[in-house]
């Protein structure tokens, strides 16, 4: 079975500092991997490498079948969903308009966007300006985006941060949806407690190197 993502000996330096050293990592279809580590351990960097947004300085890997560092990654990017530290929103647009804009950029229709908005419980609040919405609401829109685009590889960075309990179930739903269609997910957090119930395997990262801390949590 082709892995969703496989990294072998990945090295990343940002400027002078090594951030990832010799990282081996794999996500199989139907698997949600949690990555836990202290601040500065390289979690976000790992996520960006998996998103094909950051080219590693050393090592090799594939994401959704495309070798990292080659042009082929362009073909798989649309199947990758990244919800980073900060929600990706245009502040002057309303929450609904943000989803609409993304739907149009993705080649999807308005009804799909409204549907996603409904599923995250924001239909009533869709007219709120994104810049004036709470962090929790902005986060929900980010997750709505993932429900909208239905990526094959879901990458979540501190996904549950600042969310109330019902919204945290959303994270599980997003992950479950990706896994259900044979995709994979990687969730990153500084605290294993925040990873959610969908995670099947947890690895620890520290100082840019990884340690598998065992199977189920």
């Amino acid at each position, binding site marked *: 079975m082709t892995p969703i993502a496989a990294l072998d000996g990945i090295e990343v330096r940002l400027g002078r500092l090594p951030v990832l050293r010799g990282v081996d990592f794999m996500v199989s279809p139907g698997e949600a991997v949690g990555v836990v580590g202290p601040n500065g351990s390289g979690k976000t960097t790992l996520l960006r490498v998996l998103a094909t947004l950051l080219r590693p300085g050393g090592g090799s890997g594939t994401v959704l079948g495309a070798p990292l560092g080659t042009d082929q990654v362009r073909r798989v*990017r*649309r199947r990758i969903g990244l919800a980073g530290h900060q929600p990706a929103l245009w502040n*002057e647009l309303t929450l609904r308009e943000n989803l609409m804009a993304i739907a149009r950029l993705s080649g999807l229709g308005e009804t799909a966007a409204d549907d996603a908005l409904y599923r*995250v419980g924001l239909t009533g609040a869709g007219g709120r300006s994104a810049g004036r919405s709470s962090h929790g*609401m902005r986060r929900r829109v980010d997750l709505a985006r993932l429900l909208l685009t239905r990526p094959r590889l879901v990458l979540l960075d501190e996904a549950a941060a600042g969310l109330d309990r019902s919204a945290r179930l959303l994270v599980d739903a997003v992950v479950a949806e990706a896994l*259900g*269609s044979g995709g994979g997910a990687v969730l990153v957090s500084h605290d294993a407690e925040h990873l959610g119930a969908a995670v099947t395997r947890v690895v620890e990262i520290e100082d840019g190197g990884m340690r598998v801390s065992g199977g189920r949590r």
Partner: protein
Amino acid sequence: MTEPVTTTVSAGPGAVPDSPPGSLHQLFETARRELVLEGRAGEVWGIVIPFGALALILLPLALGPDVPLLARVGPAVFWVVALLFGMLIALRQSSADPAELRDLQRLLEVDPAARLVGKALAGAVWLLGLLLVLGAATVVLYAPAIPVRWWMVPVVLMLVALGVAMAATLAGEVAAGLRSRSTLAPLLAAPLGIPVLVAAAETTDRLQVGGSILTPTLLLVMVDLILAIVIVLAAGPLEDATS
């Protein structure tokens, strides 16, 4: 805000179609969105244009109320202020997408050239507004001689707006994400704006004496074309550089 719906949905292939919408579509989508964003932020009409008008007042204050001299330098001052403040419009902080939005657009395979040209187009629209307001202010404050064929001026204004917007957008992208972007980008953009400035000033000079403005207008068109080509070529490499 209501409870989210967390029941599982039927599995299926990825929702997003295999290839992104066409570049032209993305271009107009970007331009439209940028226009809405600025329309709501109100930075151009609320801040930059008033500041530009203020700048027009500064020179006569420094020079003294020498009416014939002001009438002579009026158009030149107009173009200089238009160039410098026009760049501010295209380089304003709110027009710079933060890292997460850039990441998102990269993942959605938004054509970087379409994105940049779309941004420049939106910037050009706002710049045109700046030029019209400053032009009126210049006529009032400096009382230059109005050329007979004044109706040609809007054509020149449009070409200038395009040129300055493209130069500034390009510079803004080269400096994207850098700490010193707000100061570095204008420095990078200014040399690109000089041919535009020279050609524009030449058109108003010639119009005032009733001469032909074909040559400077052609130069403007040529510069705009060159800038457009450069943006399209540079967009891809610059996107790689933000990783």
